[in-house]
């Protein structure tokens, strides 16, 4: 149950190509995150899997069966929307029971399943409230509850946390991860937030302009980005990308080094002046104007005695350098 296979999937709206030939296998039980900048087609791809949009060409199969032309209701998938999309006129109980009611389950069984789901999601005290009487996090859990009760082949999440405040986002993120460990059902999760992608995914699919840039586990993408796009997208703060003479010295068109892979060293090759200096306590973020290289972001420990205008020497860690050719591809 729950394997999703996309082959040569394309989608265009009125002649504009949004998804340009996607091949992807999502094995059963995996937590896959689609990540990319806005407009990259990640939400459209999810909606194609859901059946909310027609696939222009290519096939989507779920559990080995061709589902390309099936209506959403017949695909056995459940979706959690960005706006939660709760039915405002129904109580929490009725919201969660709705898919069961549509499936024609007997009332007692609906009741039993709703209460089981409510227990898992700590919603039992709120079952008879309307969505408008709930907080953002509770609404999110109702939306998840509505998805769980169907026992779907896979869960689809469309940026489910983007309407929550920062603190709640972190705790919901953990709840969804735990849910995945408990249910062991396939989950496909769309986000533009690379931190969510890194922390939740078994595997990340990086999308850009309707194409897959790279597929891999979070650490694979972090350690060996396949191209400049992935290098720039994954990791926070962003990887420094240096062109010109300094890159040529390393035999590359573009040289990439992550801020956390640069040390402050007396004899460091890069010398410059500290511009912005942010002391976060645990870390310090520096913007350094390095002569002949350009502006470099550096992440160092919490107690460096530097401030705006300090002179500093930097040493990039030699084994953590990323080299890219003129086409932006990673060099071996």
């Amino acid at each position, binding site marked *: 149950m729950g394997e999703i296979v996309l082959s040569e999937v394309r989608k265009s*709206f009125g002649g504009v190509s949004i998804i340009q030939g996607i091949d992807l296998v999502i094995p059963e039980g995996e937590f896959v995150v689609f990540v990319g900048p806005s407009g990259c087609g990640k939400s459209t791809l999810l909606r194609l899997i859901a*059946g*909310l*949009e*027609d696939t222009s060409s290519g096939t989507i199969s779920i559990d080995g069966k061709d589902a390309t032309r099936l*209506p959403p209701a017949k695909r056995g998938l459940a979706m959690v929307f960005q706006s939660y999309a709760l039915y405002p006129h129904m109580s929490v109980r009725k919201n969660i029971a709705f898919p069961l009611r549509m499936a024609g389950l007997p009332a007692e069984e609906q009741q039993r399943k709703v209460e089981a789901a409510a227990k898992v999601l700590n919603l039992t005290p709120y079952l008879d409230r309307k969505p408008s009487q709930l907080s953002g996090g509770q609404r999110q859990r109702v939306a998840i509850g509505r998805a769980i009760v169907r026992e779907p082949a896979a869960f689809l999440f469309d940026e489910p946390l983007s309407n929550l405040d920062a603190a709640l986002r972190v705790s919901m993120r953990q709840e969804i991860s735990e849910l995945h460990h408990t249910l062991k059902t396939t989950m496909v999760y769309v986000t533009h937030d690379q931190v969510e992608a890194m922390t939740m995914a078994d595997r990340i699919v990086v999308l850009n302009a309707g194409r897959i840039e790279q597929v891999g586990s979070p650490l694979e993408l972090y350690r060996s980005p396949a191209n400049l796009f992935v290098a720039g997208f994954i990791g926070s703060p962003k990887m420094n990308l240096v062109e010109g003479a300094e890159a040529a010295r390393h035999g590359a068109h573009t040289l990439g080094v992550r801020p956390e892979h640069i040390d402050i060293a007396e004899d460091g090759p890069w010398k410059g002046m500290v511009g912005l200096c942010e002391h976060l306590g645990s870390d310090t973020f520096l913007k350094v104007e390095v002569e002949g290289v350009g502006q470099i972001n550096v992440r160092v420990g919490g107690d460096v005695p530097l401030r705006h205008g300090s002179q500093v020497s930097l040493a990039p860690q030699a084994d953590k350098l990323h080299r890219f050719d003129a086409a932006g591809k990673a060099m071996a």
Partner: protein
Amino acid sequence: MATQASRIAGRLMLSPAVVLLFLWMIVPLGMTIYFSFLRFNLLMPGTEEFTGFENYSYFFTDPAFWPALVNTLTLVLGVLVITVVGGVALAVLLDQPMWGQGIVRILVIAPFFVMPSVSALVWKNMLMNPVNGLFAALARALGLQPIDFFASAPLASITAIVAWQWLPFATLILFTAMQSLDREQMEAAEMDGAGPIWRFVHLTLPHLMRAMTVVVLIQTIFLLSVFAEILVTTNGGPGTASTTLTFLVYMQSMLQFDVGLGSAGGIVAVILANIVAIFLMRMIGKNLEA
């Protein structure tokens, strides 16, 4: 953004309304056009024959035609001017802080809900009647000669009645639009030293433009068809002094039973309305796109 299946369902669900409206528009309109080329009187059944543009030439040379056209435009423009100017003034007034604003608003809106035949009768008999009306009583109390409104100024009297009915509508819409006026912008202008008149002309009026457009459009649609007010008060008279195109066509087809002539008149009214509509749709298109 939807699937093929839902698009098909959408089309199926849209079609009854579209088909019915299309039939409602095209069948009678086609019949009217057809009748307008016939000699066709309901009192003489069986004598219908094709006459070309004869009905049109009769209609245009009817001594009532030009007065009716002028009366129609006078009525529509008169009511529009009164209601828009009065509506803006009332909207600005109602927007000020006051006691009992809710009740004031209810009182101002009330005439809109009065059916045309009632308002026409009430104005004609109880207010404007030269003998028993309240205005006559007032005039006498002031030592003046009571005015026979419908004899001496029939069109102006009807315009007043219709304006009374539509003033609430304009006020309500303009007042609603006032609510969305950017108060901070107003205060910023005040800080910059702009006086109340400058603020009204340069901030309030432009903000109300869109609402005024809507008022003009909607009212024009209804005003071109003003009927009951005329039927009840003057019956188009005296002479043709208060006959509008709508009323002229009504008289020809429903009172003289001359279907051919009435139909030609109807088509003229349609063409006139279309000319107005094209202007309005353009204006609206510009103003509503945003």
